[in-house]
């Protein structure tokens, strides 16, 4: 029995996957299986599109970029395991996008790894997880965040709501877990400060991704007389609650953080919530944005209909990487980090952006958009015929918050 055990181990181990040696490797460590895989799929397309473009132009200092994918099965622990595999496969940049929990795990892993292996260090890119702690208390010299964090977006939302004096009764709807609770607190603090007249008529913290029927919550919102709901929900939770709201004919406005994500546009279009759902997002994904339009047209032609603008962080990351590598004239980790700090570039929305050297947080303008039935031929989402219409652009300085990162530099 043991012999057979051992033999099978040996056989399988020797069959390890051969990797090309001469490429610059970026490892995507994200859930490629399970319910969240749908998000990863979208991100992978965006990332590959950006990288293909860069490779076509000669790559990174002449070196082609190769994307490796690792399935973390949506588990932080598995993220750490896959990170080790990615490093052994020769990855220089480890990128994760789905779920802050996984990002924390990756950052912590790389912190420890780089400390224990000073000769072979790696960089973390955060492509879409928006927990402020990633560039706050858990910030790392080795990690860069390419999306606006929840606190910045909340600041933007607060600034927009300051102009919406018609809204005075607001309902808070968030999921359990760090993402939901930190966003909830940020909303209470920032929106509360901007609009002291707002009354919080409801404040629900519901189980994360477990509820199949949100009708009871909608009934509560209806009964509370709320004019608006602010929610940090995402994925199935968001889709289900918007559907339930549409069905019940709830006429409150929704201020969301993740309604650009997969499934939500479909749910919104189905529910007929025309113009009722607002998104606080990294950029102006709206139908009016010409620059984005050109980019999207190329992207959609290449990948088959889905939008790139839902995941701007991954494109930003590659753009910043290209500029930094050019500036550094090297693809070495030390040089790249030095050049990435403070690098300025343009996002897919055509807005200026830079990575703040203090905490490696991207700083850019943001937009509030609402989801509407768009004219034929305009940019729509998920083939629904509905798309984003910009209602406000919040300049970068409004949402730039003080640095809270105490970065340990080597």
């Amino acid at each position: 029995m043991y012999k057979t055990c051992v033999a099978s181990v040996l056989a399988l181990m020797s069959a390890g996957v051969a990797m090309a040696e001469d490429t610059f490797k970026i490892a995507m460590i994200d859930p490629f299986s399970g319910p969240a895989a749908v998000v990863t799929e979208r991100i992978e397309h965006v990332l590959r599109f950006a990288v293909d473009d860069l490779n076509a132009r000669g790559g990174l200092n002449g070196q082609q970029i190769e994307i490796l994918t690792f399935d973390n099965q949506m588990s932080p622990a598995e993220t750490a395991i896959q990170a080790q595999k990615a490093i052994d496969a020769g990855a220089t940049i480890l990128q994760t996008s789905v779920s802050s929990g996984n990002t924390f795990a990756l950052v912590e892993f790389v912190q420890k790894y780089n400390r224990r292996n000073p000769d072979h260090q790696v960089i973390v890119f955060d492509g879409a997880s928006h927990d402020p702690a990633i560039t706050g208390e858990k910030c790392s010299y080795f990690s860069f965040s390419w999306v606006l964090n929840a606190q910045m977006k909340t600041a933007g939302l607060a600034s927009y709501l300051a102009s919406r004096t018609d809204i005075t009764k607001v309902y808070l709807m968030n999921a359990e877990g760090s993402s939901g609770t930190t966003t909830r607190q940020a909303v209470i603090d920032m929106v509360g400060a901007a609009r002291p007249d707002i009354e919080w008529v409801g404040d629900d913290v519901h189980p994360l991704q477990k509820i199949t029927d949100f009708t009871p919550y909608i009934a509560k919102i209806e009964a509370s007389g709320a004019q608006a709901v602010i929610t940090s929900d995402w994925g199935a939770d968001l889709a289900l609650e918007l559907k339930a709201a549409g069905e019940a004919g709830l006429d409150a406005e929704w201020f969301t953080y993740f309604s650009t994500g997969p499934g939500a546009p479909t749910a919104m279009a189905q529910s007929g919530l025309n113009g009722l759902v607002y998104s606080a997002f990294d950029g102006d994904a709206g139908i009016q944005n010409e620059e984005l339009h050109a980019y999207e047209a190329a992207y959609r032609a290449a990948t088959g209909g889905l939008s790139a603008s839902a995941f701007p962080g991954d494109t930003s990351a590659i753009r910043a990487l290209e500029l930094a590598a050019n500036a550094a004239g090297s693809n070495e980790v030390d040089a790249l980090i030095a050049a990435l700090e403070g690098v300025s570039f343009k996002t897919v929305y055509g807005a200026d952006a830079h990575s703040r050297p203090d905490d490696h947080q991207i700083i850019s303008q943001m937009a509030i958009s609402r989801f509407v039935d768009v004219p034929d031929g305009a940019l729509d989402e998920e083939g629904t015929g509905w798309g984003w219409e910009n209602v406000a652009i919040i300049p970068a300085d409004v949402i730039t918050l003080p640095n809270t990162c105490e970065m340990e530099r080597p």
Partner: protein
Amino acid sequence: MGIEVVTFSVVNSILYGMLLFLLASGLTLIFSMMGVLNFAHASFFMVGAYFGFEISRRVGFFPALVLAPVAVGLLGALVERFGLRRVHKFGHLGELLFTFGLAFVIEEAVQMIWGRSPQDFQVPAALNFTAFTLFGTGYPAFRLFMLVVAVAVFAALALLLARTRIGLIVKASLTHPEMVSMLGHDVPLVFMSVFGVGSALAGLAGVIAGPVLVTQPSMAAALGPILFVIVVVGGLGSLAGAFVASLLIGFIQTFAVAINLKVADVFGLIGVTQPPAAFGALLSDIWNVSVAQVGPVIPYLLLVAMLMFRPMGLFGKRA
């Protein structure tokens, strides 16, 4: 809690409970007949939703309402004939493990065919209107339709079991399979049919729930465990028990949401407004727990308590 919230919660509880019952009825039917706790039942539900989606976008929702459950039922019958029946010799554990593996494979197969994104399965136009308005909130006709279908299924099942010859054979096979076969009835065929019908019921629930909940590969895993709670709490094999337990779970989950109460509020009543710092972080966790958060825990508490103190469930006759 205002009267609106109570009214709405009651209506929602019943609706949600009925959807659960549609699912649980098939599961409990299969269990009572065959002693098989079918872990793949929620998977058949999901397959029903996907079939419903595919058929309805070709020939419309109402044909799908009939065709999809039939297709799922046939699938179920095939599974029984070529899978379950063969593992029968390994006992209930073998059957349970088989359905466990089947659930796994079905979820993968669904992703393989339809991908991981939710499907755009819409409420049919004919039912996409507000049925009535209560306290200013519209009530969608489709939900009412769900209710009607669930009640109809319950009635039809009850009638089928109580009044028809087939029902008699099914009921008798439940307790005396050998005797029934000796009276000339093909009991394995009965079992296959029951499994097929049970699966078809799950498929029907899928077609109906597909547009309301989101048709996606995780919809099976989300509902699976709660079904077992219903079947166990109701009394393994009792249709009436499953009906009551479905409503019970519907009420628990709906009202847990509706009640705005936190542990802190309870302490607030007795004048304690801050958690004593001495007890640290754990107590402040408890402090912040709301009834809505406890809601999902209650069914499992009920399950464990039921198995320990009344293993035959609410309505079950056998332990």
